[in-house]
């Protein structure tokens, strides 16, 4: 019954008029920055932080949280329409979402993305309310050893993720891992492959690499193709998903939500793992994996649900333990401290109206996002009718502003342009950049955790098998590897590729 009391307390806070207003402001700003490629929630929240001083703590946090999950909604819009992932989390949405848009089905793709996000957001709110404490305890059981095993599983998913040849996707994963080693090594402090350039010492930033390889490379390829772009029909019937779409998407939404809720709690790998894992799972269990990458609606629904659920459950370590799961949560801690609230495990008991108010506001916020986004689908889709000669300079401009804004450095703009050239080359030779990005994101964490686990265990590798969570994860890896390499599967794969 305590749960009901808590939720009621939360709703009574979240439904106060001023809190509803701040929630609305938050989600509207979030959607806007999500739609603009490259301008992410982190600089936005940092910029708005001083404005929250004057607000009561719950209003401040409700607004900042709204910006965060609002950006997850908005990010998928640009990914689907113009193939530019603004956030780590929307890379996967590019794959099938943009394929759908090219087939003139941008409307259903956007609608399914919004509906999946809402569904995941609602479920994740309940998950947070019910399971915060046990989940936070579980997250604390994840030490370097468990992270390493989880990341191995994630990287294996990258190979499954790619369509086309296994050798090509393996090559891309390894190239990604290699690029991930650039920068100062966390364990020894040695600079690797930085060529004395200080801007490289913290490694390659993910956003410019992703925007260059996906967005700009795609633009170059489009300009060269000179194809007549699909004229998008404006009939309402074509904007909403069909019954068949919904039927196909629903199970994917449920699975994506489950994956996202679980992985979101884990600090660190947060943003990249949930959507990638959800996509890999959808592709693995689909009856016809060949459809993926060519506009499969499950490929949009699963990752979108996973990314939104993950965004919300990443609040669990913050609210229950006072530990930030990612850079944005660290900013939230900053916001709390400015309000005179010491983040930590005691917040939940000392400030119940704040904690439960924020949790309840996530649900009202998600409802607002759905109401804002569904009618906007038509508007976004009509953006595609803008002549490409006007649209592409605008995208390039926003990409440049966004990448510059990450750390106020021109270096990232050059990095993006370099990656655009590389991405164009990849399109020409027919390889997928997605596994490379996963390698780039997960590689450094894989190495860091492996070496830390070894340092703590005095170099004894048996810890990976003696610790139960790690052993289970590695067992799953072994089963997947066996399944992939077994002759029967290999034959089937060759057949499928021949078709």
């Amino acid at each position, binding site marked *: 019954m305590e749960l009901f009391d808590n939720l009621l307390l939360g709703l009574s806070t979240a439904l106060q008029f001023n809190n509803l207003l701040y929630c609305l402001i938050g989600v509207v700003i979030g959607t806007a920055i999500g739609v603009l490629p490259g301008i992410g929630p*982190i*600089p936005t*929240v*940092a910029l708005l*932080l*001083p404005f929250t001083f004057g607000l009561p703590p719950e209003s401040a946090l409700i607004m900042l949280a709204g910006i965060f999950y609002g950006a997850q909604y908005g990010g998928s819009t640009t990914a689907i329409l113009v193939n530019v992932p603004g956030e780590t989390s929307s890379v996967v949405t590019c794959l099938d979402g943009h394929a759908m848009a090219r087939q003139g089905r941008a409307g259903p793709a956007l609608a399914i993305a919004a509906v999946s996000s809402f569904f995941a957001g609602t479920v994740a709110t309940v998950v947070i309310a019910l399971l915060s404490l046990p989940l936070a305890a579980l997250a*604390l*059981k*994840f*030490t*370097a050893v468990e992270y390493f095993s989880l990341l191995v599983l994630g990287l294996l998913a990258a190979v499954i993720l790619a369509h086309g040849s296994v050798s090509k996707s393996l090559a891309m994963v390894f190239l990604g891992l290699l690029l991930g080693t650039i920068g*100062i090594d*966390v*364990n*020894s*402090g*040695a*600079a690797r492959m930085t060529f*004395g350039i*200080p*801007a490289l*010492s*913290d490694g390659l930033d993910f956003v410019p690499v992703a925007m260059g390889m996906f967005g700009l490379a795609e633009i170059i390829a489009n300009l060269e193709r000179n194809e007549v772009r699909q004229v998008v029909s404006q009939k309402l019937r074509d904007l909403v998903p069909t019954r068949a779409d919904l039927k196909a998407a629903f199970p994917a939404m449920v699975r994506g939500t489950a994956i996202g809720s679980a992985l979101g709690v884990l*600090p*660190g790998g947060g943003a990249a793992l949930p959507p990638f894992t959800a996509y890999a799972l959808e592709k693995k269990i689909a009856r016809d994996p060949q459809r993926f990458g060519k506009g499969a609606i499950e490929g949009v629904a699963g990752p979108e649900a996973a990314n939104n659920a993950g965004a919300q459950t990443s609040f669990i*370590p913050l609210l229950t*333990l*006072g*530990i*930030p799961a990612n*850079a944005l949560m*660290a*900013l939230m*801690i*900053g916001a709390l*401290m*400015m309000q*005179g609230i*010491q*983040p*930590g*495990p*005691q917040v939940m008991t000392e400030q119940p109206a704040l904690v439960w108010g924020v949790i309840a506001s996530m649900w009202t916020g998600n409802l607002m996002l759905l109401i804002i986004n569904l009618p906007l689908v038509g508007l976004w889709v009509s953006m595609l009718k803008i002549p490409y000669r006007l649209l592409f300079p605008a995208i390039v401009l926003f990409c440049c502003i966004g990448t510059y804004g990450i*750390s*106020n*450095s021109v270096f990232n703009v050059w990095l993006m342009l370099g990656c655009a050239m590389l991405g164009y080359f990849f399109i020409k030779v027919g390889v997928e950049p997605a596994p490379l990005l996963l390698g780039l994101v997960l590689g450094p964490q894989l190495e*860091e955790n492996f070496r*830390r686990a070894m*340092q*703590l265990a*005095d170099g004894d590798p048996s810890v990976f098998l003696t610790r139960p969570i790690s052993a289970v994860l590695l067992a799953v890896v072994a089963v997947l590897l066996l399944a992939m390499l077994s002759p029967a599967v290999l034959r089937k794969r060759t057949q499928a590729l021949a078709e």
Partner: protein
Amino acid sequence: MKYRRLGAAVAALALCGALIPTLVQAQSFDRPVRIVVPFAPGGTSDILARLISPKLSEAVGQPVVVENKPGAAGNIGADAVAKARPDGHTLLLMDIGSLAVAPSLFSDLSYDVKKDLEPVGMVMFGPYVLAVHPSVPAKTVPELVDYAKANPGKLAVANSGVGALNHITSVALARGLGIDWKAVPYKGGAAASRAVVSGESTVIINGATATLPFVTSKQLVGIAVTGDARLPALPEAQTFKEAKLPLADAGTWQALLTTGKTPAAVVARLNAELQKILAMPEIKEKVAEQGGMVRPGTPDEVKAWLATNIESWGGIVRAADIKSN
């Protein structure tokens, strides 16, 4: 002698500047002022810069913009300020512990900490708390030292990165006390705290704000604090000085600096405004929430602080052969 006279002249000039409005015009600010924070948003330096900027803006009559230029342990942001026009319109707010160790840590530093940066004034000091995971059977400094001596190599001290001041402190403690513990680097203080709360590592030396909540909730055991006095929130923990531990003044020392060769009058004006801001009750209160206390003072105090610690902290880095490049 010459310098002291110059200092007196500067002080006199600053005094005149405060008294005679026409003289203030001479050191006026004619375009927006930037405060460069060489770290990502959300950290202590960033929060302090955002606290100070509106007040400074009122004082100088120009917009004051906070600009995050993260990367290379603060060197990218510091380098940008070191190479800016020396007119006091480009400021740097950072933990100057990083500046003190940078010359020893990086062999190819692109700026000279002493020459290319001009201190404006100290802003705050935040003490460190030395805490352990409850699985470690120690509640006081002697107990911890005994345990560490009986179990060499067993304790793992989490730090926020190779060459970070809490890494250097752990190295200095190991050398000073003759104990053997592992220094385990993490990406930032938050990751290090998390690792010690989960028991992955067992000891942490980190800012009071980040550490105290876990001590209050009994997830960590507070053992000692740096700084001059015990913390009201942790009265049973000795200070490093009481326990005769090395590096008793370790912690986060946040200061405001500007480009080297900035005219002394401009630096004096900035320092005068900074002192007024640090005296405001609301600023004191907000700084206390960051786990520290405001540190009013002259530019020369920061200069002396840097000169001392480039030697003493830098000496530990060189002796332990810690490198980052």
